[in-house]
């Protein structure tokens, strides 16, 4: 895998796969690809912003808490819509499994700058699932309905 590059494989109009090194500079190219994909699949401007932000937060969390730094490991994304038009994004990392209990979502009654990412990811998507069944790595599934 080329280090500074986002690798994209388009399977169809409804399915793309991407892989990247865990680098923060690659989060924007991922957002741009997601914007194109979601737009082509009928999502509106607000939904697209929310999808981009949720994935942004997931990737930033993997780099910071999973890999504990930049350029430590790889991340793979598969993005597809089902026959209802709903979006499913699977994000696979290969880091040591993060104890989710230690990641705290933000307390909205306090002016805090920690925990915002997890709060946003959970709030902006219709479903968020973690698959921790493998020995190493986490598969995060984010789902967004086309029609809320």
């Amino acid at each position: 895998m080329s280090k500074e590059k986002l690798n994209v494989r388009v399977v169809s109009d409804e399915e793309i796969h991407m892989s990247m090194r865990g680098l923060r500079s690659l989060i924007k190219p991922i957002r741009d690809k997601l914007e194109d994909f979601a737009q082509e699949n009928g999502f509106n401007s607000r939904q697209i912003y929310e999808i981009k932000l949720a994935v942004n937060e997931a990737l930033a969390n993997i780099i910071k808490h999973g890999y504990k730094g930049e350029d430590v490991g790889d991340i793979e994304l598969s993005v597809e819509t089902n026959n209802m038009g709903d979006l499913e994004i699977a994000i696979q990392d290969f880091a040591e499994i993060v104890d989710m209990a230690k990641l705290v979502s933000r307390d909205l009654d306090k002016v805090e700058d920690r925990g915002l990412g997890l709060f946003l990811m959970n709030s902006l998507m219709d479903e968020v699932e973690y698959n921790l069944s493998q020995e190493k790595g986490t598969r995060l599934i984010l789902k967004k309905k086309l029609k809320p």
Partner: protein
Amino acid sequence: MSELVEKTNDTAVITLQGELDVNNVDNLKSAIEAELQEGTGKILVDLKNVSYMDSAALGVLVSGLKRARLANAQFKLANVTGNVENIFKLTRLTKFFEIYTSVDEAVESF
């Protein structure tokens, strides 16, 4: 993302442009820090031309607000609109920040 700092007397207006995220937010952090270090008493961040913000960018603004309070400085925002405004509302940050609809209105409020 790019930022421009315009300074008049004790007021600094930090104008941001583009997408503000975890990869470039250190510039904003440094700009706010520099103003606080210099003893600037009134700091305004203009988000008019910001099309995207992630939690790292929101975190820098929250951190700026907290640090300004500790330094007895004022820290305000202007032009929080569209999708960025939706995220401020979702995270309830609207209740912590003083937010104005224009730079002029914000500067007058100091």
